[in-house]
């Protein structure tokens, strides 16, 4: 074994005298991929950035040594570091959308590292970029560079950013949560490309890479070695296979045996629906003949019994959040109706009564923006109490304390401004505010997507308890298929605003699905390192045709001559209803 390509020993990064990460040591051989894994705040990004000699928020490398391909990193001046960054060490950030300059063409930005470091002429760099585009399986590699960043999709932009990083054949590539912001289906595609491109890099010798992620399943696909960080310390480091199959540290064992949500108890018999949605069509822009200019939802229908839970899943842009906004009245529907306890809910906010407002409560996705930063916890919770129930003074204080207790928040947060709360606490306040209204229907819009796995699981179990104790009907919007299938009795799958499948939990956990649901389920990474290689790459042929099955261009099971000619029929059977030419019933299929 030759000398390690990257060697870090005793690395400590500190802000003032407070260490952010301390005593980190690891080594990576040439061509290997090391994964840094941990929760947010565990110091994984700090460690990765320190490899470039970069510290955030006024931090500094307090001690330790960093060697990248024989180069000393620590103690170098900014000028010496700029000669290395982008040339020998490249960085791929989480959000490619934020990393690209929207006003310049993609090609100019991709070849920029090579031009700045004067290692290629513009022609050479452009030729190399086109090669990389091809290796990254980008559509029309010759011309995609002429587009602007907003003209390509999120997954494509992430791959273009990889091309930017790899154009100088760097010694080390740092990938910082590169697929966290992507849909599961896009993630598969991007991971496949990254893996191929990293192997192809450096004239086939493969690039050395640091892969930062919180998702062990993703890491299992990419890494040769895994380093687990907890609160700024390295708790375990070893070959990927050992860490995944025989973790030594207790924390790693928790991560590997990820807490799968416990299936919830069903809500008893088929009670009368408290919330029904019938033929709902909504969107943005002017409504002409009951069809908005930009339709987002088409013909959505479901029933939700009191105390029941409905899960809504789909990729981003499938209209999940829009559906919640329509039910809450923030976006009036163009067609169809929402029934609350059997009577129609006025589509517009202005026409709703106070009691109708109270009955349906929306919990927003992002607690950072959903809570007024100028208010204290007390004021945020007291407002709905006064607004709906006329509670003020001591009675309101008592109820606020009860709500904090109900959402398992410590009583001392009551007078704190929301800006001083942690992410999990904010989400609990967000939930408590909705509960203050004493609603019958709770619309939870991606309430865990901004939270760490462990914190998110706690929020989910809290919502589940509240649902059972208070008899709340819950609409649960999420992209977390595991959570939805565990918590919800019914699951609605949206694709491009069209409901393609509505299944009971038993049916949803079964093996027969609408092709789109199958794609979503198979796109969830597993701990098996071979998963990525055995998973089919997503397909895309042509565009969606109005009136036909919306999923047809991406469907692996589409029947030529049928799916691209005849609108898909709505079929029912075995506890599910779906929009497809294939039949859901096994008997019928046979």
């Amino acid at each position: 074994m030759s000398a390690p390509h990257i060697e870090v020993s005793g690395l400590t990064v500190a802000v003032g005298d407070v260490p952010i990460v301390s005593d980190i040591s690891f080594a990576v051989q040439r061509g290997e991929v090391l994964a840094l894994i941990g929760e947010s705040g565990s110091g994984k990004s700090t460690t990765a950035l320190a490899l470039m000699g970069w510290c955030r928020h006024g931090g500094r490398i307090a001690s330790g040594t960093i060697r990248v391909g024989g180069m000393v990193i620590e103690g170098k001046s900014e000028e010496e570091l700029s000669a290395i960054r982008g040339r020998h060490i490249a960085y791929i950030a989480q959000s490619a959308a934020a990393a690209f300059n929207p006003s310049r063409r993609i090609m100019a930005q991709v070849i920029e590292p090579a031009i700045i470091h004067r290692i290629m002429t513009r022609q050479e760099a452009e030729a190399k970029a086109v090669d990389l585009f091809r290796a990254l399986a980008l559509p029309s590699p010759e011309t995609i560079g002429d587009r602007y960043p907003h003209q390509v999709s999120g997954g494509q932009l992430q791959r273009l950013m990889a091309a930017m990083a790899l154009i100088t054949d760097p010694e080390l590539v740092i990938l910082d949560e590169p697929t966290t912001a992507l849909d599961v289906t896009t993630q598969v595609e991007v991971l496949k490309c990254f893996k191929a491109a990293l192997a192809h890099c450096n004239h086939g010798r493969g690039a050395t890479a640091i892969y930062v992620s919180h998702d062990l399943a993703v890491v299992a696909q990419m890494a040769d070695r895994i380093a687990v960080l907890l609160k700024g310390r390295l708790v375990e480091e070893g070959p990927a296979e050992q860490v995944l199959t025989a973790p030594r540290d207790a924390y790693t064992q928790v991560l590997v045996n990820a807490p799968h949500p416990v299936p919830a108890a069903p809500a008893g018999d088929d009670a009368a629906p408290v919330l029904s949605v019938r033929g709902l069509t909504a969107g943005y822009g002017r409504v002409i003949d009951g069809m908005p200019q930009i339709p987002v939802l088409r013909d959505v229908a479901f029933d939700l019994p009191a105390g029941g839970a409905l899960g809504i899943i789909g990729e981003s842009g499938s209209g999940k959040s829009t559906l919640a906004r329509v039910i809450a009245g923030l976006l009036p529907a163009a067609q169809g109706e929402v029934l609350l306890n059997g009577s129609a809910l006025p589509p517009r906010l202005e026409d709703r009564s106070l009691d109708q407002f109270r009955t349906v409560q929306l919990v927003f996705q992002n607690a950072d923006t959903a809570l007024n930063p100028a208010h204290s916890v007390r004021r945020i919770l007291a407002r709905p109490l006064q607004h709906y129930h006329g509670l003020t003074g001591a009675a309101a204080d008592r109820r606020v304390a009860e709500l904090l207790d109900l959402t398992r928040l410590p009583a001392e947060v009551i007078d704190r401004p929301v800006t001083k709360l942690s992410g999990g606490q904010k989400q609990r306040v967000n939930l408590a505010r909705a509960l203050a209204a004493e609603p019958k229907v709770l619309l939870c819009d991606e309430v865990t997507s901004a939270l760490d796995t462990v914190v998110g699981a706690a929020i989910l179990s809290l919502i589940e308890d509240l649902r059972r104790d208070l008899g709340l009907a819950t609409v649960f919007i999420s992209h977390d298929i595991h959570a939805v299938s565990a918590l919800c009795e019914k699951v609605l799958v949206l694709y491009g605003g069209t409901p393609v499948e509505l299944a009971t939990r038993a049916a949803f956990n079964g093996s027969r699905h609408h092709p789109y649901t199958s794609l979503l389920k198979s796109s969830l990474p597993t701990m098996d390192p071979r998963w990525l290689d055995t998973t089919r790459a997503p397909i895309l042929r042509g565009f969606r045709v109005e009136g036909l099955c919306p999923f047809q261009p991406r469907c692996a099971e589409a029947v030529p001559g049928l799916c691209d000619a005849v609108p898909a029929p709505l079929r029912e059977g075995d506890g599910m209803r779906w929009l497809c030419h294939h039949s859901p019933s096994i008997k019928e299929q046979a």
Partner: protein
Amino acid sequence: MKRSISLLAGAPLATRIAAGFVGFWLVLAVAGPWVAPHPVGAFVDQDVFSGLSARFWLGSDYLGRDVFSRLLYGARYTVFLGLGAALLAACCGTTLALWATLSGGMVDEIISRAMDTLISIPSKILALVLVAACGSSLPLLLLICALTYVPGNFRIARALAMNLAALDFVAAARARGERKFAIALHEVLPNMIHPLLADLGLRFVFVVLLLSGLSFLGLGVQPPYADLGSLVRENISGLTEGAPAILAPALAIAVLTVGTNLLIDALKPEDKR
């Protein structure tokens, strides 16, 4: 009151100095005429632009009047007229901005275009017309100064409110069934108060400028009374001699405006500093 005193005790030095300046000027503005050693318009010195002396603490002006006494009277106009007009402008502008933002559509369009119209009228000409029609009086001056700075404040407040109104917590309030007034007061306003205060500090300085300009045209505070700006203006010929008659009011304006702006900066929430 007790709370604000204890708040000051724990504040950084700059804040306490700024609060001291502003408090000093408020006291002077109220008590000035009673402590002034000479009447405001009396010619008490044989000499003009005389230096500092025991009898005339800040010397005499271009007509031989006591600068210290005139300063004490002038502070009243600048503080109350200037701050009053700036506050009035900010209140009107922000109220209109919140109304326009939360109503949207036609209401927003009408208010915004009305403000554009107002901004296109030169303020001095408007003042000239109004004073000529109604005669110079303090309420009219206050109104003119306020009216001049309403559109500017409206523009800033509307931009701030537009950004805030797009946030989730405003959507949450709408989904809760809150009225527009409650949303404006509880959700939007508290989050734009600090930039608005900074704007207020700026407008205050502009009002002082406008007032002295009006006085120069004979439309402002009428002689023998004068605000701080007109004191500088009327003694401008003393500049070559470095007379205290011009330095003192100029310094007074500087201390007042810098103090006001420092105090406003100090009011920012801790985490945004």
